[in-house]
Each structure stands twice: as C-alpha cells, then as structure tokens.
C-alpha cells in the first residue's frame, strides 16, 4: 500500500481541500454559505454523495469498465452514477428533512453537476486507489468540503453584523474575498505531511 489510509484522509481534508485548494464546487461554496444551517445540510449531503459515489464508481470502474476495456467511458459513466445518487439523496431529504430540502432549494440538485463530486471519483481512478482508499478519500474530500463550508458560513454569519466598505460590497464579492484569505491559509498545510 503506497499511502496509508490516514495519510489519504489528511490529504483529502486539508492538503487537497476541494474548495480551497483545488477550487472545485465553488457555486455551492458561495451560494449555500449564507447561514450555518443550510451549509451543514449541504455538506452532509455532499459527504454522503461522495462516499456513495466513491464506492459505486469504484465497483463500476474496476468490475465493468476495466474488464471490457472501456476506461474511456469513465467520465460519462460517473456522471450518470452521481446524478442518480443525488436524486436518491433528494428523495430521502425531501421525505425526512423537508425544512432542509426547502433551505437547500436549487443547490441540492446542483450537487449533480458539482464538480467536486466528479473530481473526487476521477482522482480515485487516477491515483489507482483500492476500495478502502477510494472510500476514505471520498469521505475525506466530503469532510474537507464540510470544513471549508462551515468556516465560510460562520465567517459570513458574523460578518453580516459588521460594517463592510461599500466598494467591497456584500454577498458574492465579499464571499470571494473571504474565500481567498481562507485559501491562502490552507496553503500552509502543504508542509505538514512530508511528501515521499
């Protein structure tokens, strides 16, 4: 095993953080972080989808696409899998947490096209991870997304109460300023795990 599961986990959460280092899935990062509640709901949904997508895509890739030498179909096949999983999550959330369903609004179906999820499963394939590694990386990527989302939502909730220069503005402009600063601080994690 080239990398230990623990290393993969830390990498997924901090060093390869999907939102702040790889800049994937930014639409939900800016769109659903106005309050902590919907940010945590969205993050939960993404963690679930990423873990499921990592498992299913691993099986799909290694047991169907590789034996049939159809690896080139992986992108479109993974998109189908992710879209189906998101639909499934939507059914479940709608049934059991209707309040969350309403607060997520358009962003729940948008996980379908959330590049972070597709990025996670494609990175699994590119890195030749086995099943355990894939799932750990999927969960870690989701948790990294959660960390960034919750920090962003917390900052935005607080900064709603302070004076912001008019030229900076509120909303999306301001969110990108915060994101930039957070991203710069996450770069400092690069040195934590020595690269072999």
């Amino acid at each position, binding site marked *: 095993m080239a990398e230990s599961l623990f290393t993969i986990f830390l990498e997924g959460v901090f060093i390869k953080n999907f939102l702040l280092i790889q800049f994937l899935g930014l639409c939900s990062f800016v769109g659903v972080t106005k309050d902590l509640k919907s940010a945590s709901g969205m993050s939960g949904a993404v963690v679930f989808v990423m873990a499921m997508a990592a498992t299913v895509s691993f099986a799909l890739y290694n047991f*169907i696409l590789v034996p049939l030498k159809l690896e080139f*179909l992986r992108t479109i*096949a993974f998109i189908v*899998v992710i*879209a*189906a999983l998101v639909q499934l999550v939507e*059914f479940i959330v709608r049934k059991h947490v209707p309040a969350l369903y*309403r607060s997520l609004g358009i962003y729940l179906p948008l996980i379908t096209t959330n590049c972070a999820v597709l990025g996670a499963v494609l990175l699994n394939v590119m890195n030749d991870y086995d099943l355990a590694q894939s799932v750990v990386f999927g969960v870690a990527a989701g948790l990294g997304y959660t960390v960034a989302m919750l920090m962003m939502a917390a900052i935005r909730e607080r900064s709603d109460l302070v004076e912001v220069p008019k030229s900076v503005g509120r909303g999306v402009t301001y969110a990108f300023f915060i994101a930039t600063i957070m991203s710069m601080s996450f770069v400092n994690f690069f040195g934590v795990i020595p690269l072999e």
Partner: protein
Amino acid sequence: MLINSIAVLAGLGFAVGVMLVIASKVFKIDSNPLIDDVASLLPGANCGGCGFAGCAACAEAIVEQGAPVNSCPVGGFEVAKQIGALLGQEVTESEKEFPFVRCQGGNQHCTTLYDYHGVENCKVALMLCDSRKGCTYGCLGLGTCVQACQFGALSMGEDGFPVVNKALCTSCGNCIAACPNGVLTFARDSEKVHVLCRSHDKGKDVKAVCEVGCIGCKKCEKECPAGAIRVTEFLAEIDQEKCTACGACVAICPQKAIELR
C-alpha cells in the same frame, strides 16, 4: 468496442432508472394534492415577484399558510380568480401597478461626469464612482432594470431611459428591486400626476447638473388647490389620495419636473 460501449451505457442507464423508480416509490411523500393543482394554475416563471422562492413555494403558501389567492402578481386577476374558485374564495380585482421611471434627466438634460466604458450595468458603474451622471439620484441609463426583466417588458429608450411596455409587464417588481438608485417605483394607472425627479439636493446644486430636476421651490405646494403636494428635503411629493389631477402644479413648475399623464 462500439457495441460494448453502447451496451454498457444503456445498461447503466437502465439500472439507474429502475433504482430511481423504486426509490421514488419508497420515499413517496403524501402532499396535499391541492398544492399541485394551485401550482399548475400559476405561470411557472419562478420570477419571485410574489416574495416566495418560486411558483411551487407560492402554491404551498397559498394552500397551507393562508397566503392571499392573488399572491401572484404575474398571473394577475385571471389566475387569482381560478385559484379562488379552486379554494372556494371570493376574489375582487385590484388595480394593477406598473413600474414608473421617476427621472427625466437622461443624456439630454443631465450632465455626464465621465465617459464610462465598462460592463453595461448600473450597479457596476455605481461601484466605480458615486455616479456617472452629475446627479447622484437619477437614472444611470445602463439598463440594469432591462436586464432584470424576465418578460421583455422593458427596453432602453432613445434618451437612455427605460421604457415600460405595459402589455408585457407583469408587475413582478424585479426591475424595481434591480435599480440601484431606486429610480423605478410602482404607480397605478389612476394616479395621474407624478414628480419626475428624485433629487434631494438643494435647488442650486440640482440646477448645476440637471435642467429638469426638482429644485424644491415650493411653487407647486402653494399652487395646489387640494393641498396634495408637500416639499420635503427639496423634493416635491404628491399625495395621490388628495390629488385631483387639475394640472395647476404642472403649469406652474419652472423646471417642468411634474407630469400629468
């Protein structure tokens, strides 16, 4: 290879489809069928003019939370009547309100401070500097309201003003919300007399930048027989309840800032 690819993708699609059908049966929710009926009557534009997240949310609010049946400004009286019939409520028609441009400075009468070459959006222009016009209250003329209209009811007129096409306008209020200077407001058709200026600057400052702005001279206030006009902070305002549309103020206004239509 080709057959395999097609078979794999088709099989994948079929498997996923079957799974989703089963899931939709398992996680079916029993919603009030009335909500769907009301939602099917609404226009489905999801413009947000009603103040809810979309047409589905509006339908739910009407059925479950007792929102008024005429919540949808786009559907207007016709839709309200149908929803009322469905829910057993009497509906009376209220007069429609249209967006109204309260500025006549434009490119012709109001000075321009600098040549603006940027994104055609009033909000962006306002971020750059206070205003590209001499007057900080007036219409910037870059068409943010036109872009905000989902129904194609607004267009840019010759003099750099938005023109409202009442036949297409649905009174959703998106243009009014979009205007960063608050130049657009709702006005009823029965309201005949309007002050076409929003400037609270002193008369001298208004005259320096605009030929047709309200200078707060109070002539209209004295002239009005119905006492419907009040000048506050150098801007005349008309009390539409008292106004009899006699036209006295329009005749006396030295700046031609009041309109009788």
